[in-house]
């Protein structure tokens, strides 16, 4: 028993010699090490290929037009310029789009988090008729190709006078984000054992008190992860914004970026790249912090149902 259990956490190369004698010889080990080194090199090459577009965005953002239009690409931002960045930051339309984007995101975040939290609580802490069908609906709703819906969503918003309004766009975004957010939060709520709450109630807390003092703090990481998910979706979304926000004054940041691109294509890629980078970098940083929780939320939702 112990001989099997001992190498459990170690690499296969240390497994008992009598099973496959060749594997633990020096030759086998060095062969394995070579393979590992080669694979590691491959991984680094893939990493460089994958990250190159983002590097290129940042690099080009700091290049003057002369460098961008020289026969050979400028690979490094040596002797770069910040005039592209300055041009974007001094652009009034950028800040107008920023305002629209921020108002949409704030509405979406508050609504999606509160509503999804309530719903997640209901499905994971209560048993009631229709619970299963609700979860099923949540699952199926995610399968609806929203891009096919945009015309009728526009028609509906139009009939309520919500076209070109942050509230209108926020409404369709919230509906799009809710199913996944409920799905994810449900996993987090189910992960906090009800016994913890009951123990606190035995110790004299009310049910509400037990919930807010014991369970709620344990859910904070889940709420943060869901919040960031919602933020990213609402911040980055393009299609519905294109359909709903038809007035130039109501453009969100992605729409603004497309406008910037169309105005400067072929003449000044530097400004376009500066605009991209300014929109992308805060989002990427944000994303790096919480990605782990988002993936595990999805996978646990997928695996454990």
């Amino acid at each position: 028993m112990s001989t099997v259990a001992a190498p459990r956490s170690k690499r296969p190369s240390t497994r008992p010699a009598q099973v496959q004698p060749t594997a633990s010889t020096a030759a086998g080990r060095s062969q394995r090490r070579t393979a590992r080194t080669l694979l590691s090199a491959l991984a680094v090459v893939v990493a460089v290929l994958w990250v190159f577009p983002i590097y290129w965005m940042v690099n080009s953002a700091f290049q003057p037009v002369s460098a961008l239009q020289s026969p050979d690409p400028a690979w490094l931002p040596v002797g770069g310029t910040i005039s592209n960045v300055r041009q974007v930051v001094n652009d009034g339309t950028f800040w107008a789009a920023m305002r629209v984007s921020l108002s949409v995101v704030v509405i979406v975040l508050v609504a999606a988090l509160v509503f999804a939290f309530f719903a997640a609580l209901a499905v994971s802490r209560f048993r009631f008729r229709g619970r299963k069908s609700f979860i099923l609906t949540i699952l199926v709703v995610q399968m609806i190709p929203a891009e096919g819906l945009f015309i009728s969503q526009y028609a509906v918003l139009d009939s309520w006078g919500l076209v070109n309004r942050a509230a209108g766009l926020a409404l369709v975004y919230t509906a799009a984000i809710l199913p996944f957010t409920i799905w994810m939060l449900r996993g987090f709520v189910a992960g906090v054992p009800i016994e913890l709450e009951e123990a606190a109630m035995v110790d004299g807390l009310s049910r509400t008190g037990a919930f807010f003092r014991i369970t709620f703090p344990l859910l904070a990481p889940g709420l943060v992860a869901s919040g960031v998910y919602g933020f990213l979706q609402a911040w980055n979304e393009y299609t519905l914004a294109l359909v709903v926000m038809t007035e130039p004054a109501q453009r969100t940041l992605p729409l603004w970026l497309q406008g910037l691109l169309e105005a400067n294509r072929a003449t000044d890629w530097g400004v376009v790249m500066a605009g991209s980078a300014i929109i992308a970098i805060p989002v990427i940083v944000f994303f790096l912090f919480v990605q782990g929780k988002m993936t595990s939320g999805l996978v646990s939702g997928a695996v454990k149902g």
Partner: protein
Amino acid sequence: MAASAPTAAARPPARRRPRLGAYGLLLPASVVIAVALGYPLVRQFVLSFQEFGLKQQFGAPPEWVGLQNYTDLLTDSYVWTVIARSIAFCLVNAALTMLIGVALAVLMERVARAARMTLQVALLLAWGTPVLASMTVWQWLFDTQYGVINWTLVHVFGLEQFDRHSWIVQPLSFYLVATVIVVWMSVPFVAFSVYAGLLQVPNETMEAAQLDGASPRQRFWNITIPMIRPVLTIVLLLQIIWDLKVFTQIYTLQRAGAPTRETNLLGTLIYSMSKDFGQAGALATIMLVITLALTGFYIRKMLKEDEL
């Protein structure tokens, strides 16, 4: 999965509480989903049986036309071309994304720590970039005159024909560019989800198989793959859904000067019909049916296997 099967935790405790409380908690989310997703879905379905053009958008009452919109669409060979293109694009992209994603997940598991971290950060950066920013950069990379891709093909590989080559004018080349971009964006999600799945495969099982003399290849196909199948299924499902309805990438590339008619997929075709809500609604309904046809099998299987 079996090892971590939760016993009591997954089942909601049957506690006596006021039933209305649960419904009250569900209400806000249900209302938003019903208003902004459910109602438009119904509305779209209704619209698809109506004549609803510009006149109706300015107040004229809609006219019922029965299946007219559907027959109009389905007798138009161009619509069939676009449907076939969309399905082909979807399947190729989903397959490539899954293949590369799973390969990178396996790679992550087998390399040294530093290499793994490098790869993970690179993938995360690509994943976290907003789609419009990515589209913009890729258009710059593929730029006809100053794009770094043309430069590399000419100066590193000596392929002179790519000097000032325009990538998006030819439909096939247009889809190649779109595929590169879509795969680049989608692979990180697949790689990380599958990698997380791989980490859950218990070491004991692998070692037991090894002791029994299973080769690495046998272990991969007979143990690893079946154990991560639930993750693979849902990830593939999502890829198919996402790649069928792909819009932003195609639309922005079209705006870059590609011939619209030769490069339309379902999403952009529906968008181009926005003057005729009835027809757009009918085509969107057809798209929903295609999605269900492509994914229905998996959804059924998932629902059967999953304990809700």
